[in-house]
């Protein structure tokens, strides 16, 4: 792998940038692999990288129906954080944030990683109690939250001029989560893809799985695709919203439903917000990208959906909510919007697990999966390599539903 550095940049500048190597190959498709990963998104590519890098399993193919990194890894609001509620969840996200902290170096790929606090604008007392309770649990596992006054909050976010004493929901306090960060979403997919490819992993785009295949004794044997049959004794499904579409093909029912979550950006403006602002009481969150655009997200569309656009009423709700707190943003023009299909499990906690079909693994229910990419890939690779879960994801197994041990996380994500 060509090492990216200031020296390589200078060297290639001298040769008119004509000698950069391709970041990954496009090899011919083989009929069989040791491990097949469906979905070349953040989780799929990270899993392939850790399989090769940590476990020495290199005969791996990542197959993708569209293009690399064109799914939800390109359709999120890039917030990386670990302020969750349950004892089972917080250590996992703490691990993910810590892997992100060093990822630029580990992958030799500039993720444009920017550590910045996330600040919750708290407007109701039940919310304040809820977040303070999360603060105490997070403290056990090394994640951080602390309360600030309304006055301090307005000092940290000068654009926050709404929510005064006469408003519908006056601001009560702020809660700061200093571990939060943002980074360039494409770079995460491209960085993992490049390093995985360097370890021998094959990435096959435009390869759509139409059917999972299992043998007479019930074990997975491979997949049927638009480019023919591919055999593998271990198959991992990392396709976000379409997980059930694939598992339904072999009659495996999972406790997942798919929803549409959308976001949009404003025109670029001068630096105005240097933290991730989350307003859980009115259901909107925003940050400012390096280009100056405000990246704004709202609540999901209510019913099950496989669409990637945004409904006008969902969009208007988010904008109206934002303007309550940031009235000055009324003059901003909005440039573009995007949506993604996410699946959410019955208890709103992800599923990283073996299934009833031997050799078939699923990584699903990642409502807010961008922040979980490094730890999700790290632990899924461990599960595939050893057929036993890593300690961090033991609670995320499908077995929790059999014993009705739900890990209720609703309320800590945009899934309200």
């Amino acid at each position, binding site marked *: 792998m060509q090492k990216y550095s200031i020296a390589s940049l200078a060297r290639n500048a001298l040769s008119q940038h004509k000698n950069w190597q391709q970041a990954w190959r496009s090899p011919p498709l083989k009929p069989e692999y040791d491990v097949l990963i469906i979905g070349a998104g953040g989780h799929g590519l990270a899993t392939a990288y850790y399989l090769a890098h940590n476990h020495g399993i290199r005969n791996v193919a990542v197959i993708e129906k569209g293009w690399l990194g064109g799914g939800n890894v390109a359709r999120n609001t890039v917030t990386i954080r670990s302020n969750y509620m349950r004892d089972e969840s917080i250590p996992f996200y703490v691990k993910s944030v810590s892997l992100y902290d060093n990822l630029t170096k580990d992958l030799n790929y500039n993720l444009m990683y920017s550590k910045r606090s996330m600040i919750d604008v708290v407007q109701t007392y039940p919310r304040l109690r809820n977040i303070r309770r999360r603060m105490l649990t997070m403290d056990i596992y090394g994640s951080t939250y602390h309360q600030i006054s309304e006055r301090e909050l307005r000092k940290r976010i000068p654009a926050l001029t709404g929510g005064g004493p006469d408003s519908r929901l006056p601001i009560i306090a702020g809660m700061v989560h200093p571990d939060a960060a943002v980074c360039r979403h494409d770079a995460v997919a491209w960085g993992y893809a490049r390093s995985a490819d360097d370890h021998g992993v094959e990435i096959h785009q435009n390869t759509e799985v139409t059917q999972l295949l299992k043998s007479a004794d019930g074990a997975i044997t491979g997949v049927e695709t638009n480019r023919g049959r591919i055999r593998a004794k271990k198959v991992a499904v990392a396709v976000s919203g379409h997980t059930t579409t694939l598992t339904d093909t072999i009659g495996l029912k999972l406790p997942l*439903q798919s929803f549409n979550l959308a976001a949009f950006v404003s025109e670029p403006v001068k630096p105005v917000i240097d933290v991730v602002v989350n307003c859980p009481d009115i259901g909107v969150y925003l940050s400012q990208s390096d280009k100056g655009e405000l990246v704004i997200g709202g609540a999901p569309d209510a*019913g099950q959906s496989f*669409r990637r656009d945004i*409904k006008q009423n969902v969009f208007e709700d988010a904008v109206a909510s934002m303007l309550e707190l940031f009235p000055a943003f009324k003059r901003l023009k909005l440039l573009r919007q995007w949506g993604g299909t996410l699946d959410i499990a019955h208890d709103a906690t992800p599923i990283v697990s073996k299934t009833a079909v031997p050799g078939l693994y699923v990584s699903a229910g990642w409502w807010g999966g961008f922040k979980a990419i490094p730890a999700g890939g790290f632990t899924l690779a461990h599960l595939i390599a050893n057929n036993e879960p890593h300690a961090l994801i033991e609670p995320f197994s499908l077995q929790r539903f059999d014993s009705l041990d739900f890990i209720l996380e609703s309320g800590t994500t945009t899934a309200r």
Partner: protein
Amino acid sequence: MLTITCPFCGPRNETEFVHGGPLRVPRPNDPQALSDTEWVAYLTITENPLGLVKEKWWHVRGCGEWVTIERDTRSHDVHTKQEPAGE
């Protein structure tokens, strides 16, 4: 946006309604009679098709009627004639 036909008020904009979740199968009369697998499936599994789902909507900013509709999860087309939810 969806246009949902309320049996009382006729075709109305989605924003007058609140989503009431997918239509569930009736709760088993005697859960003890089910196997563990059946009980867990009843509690946790919801069909998640690329296609038609049956769901309830509450006309809360209208007449207050509950409506069940059949909607395509890919196109948002509302397919069947709407009827009162009956519960």
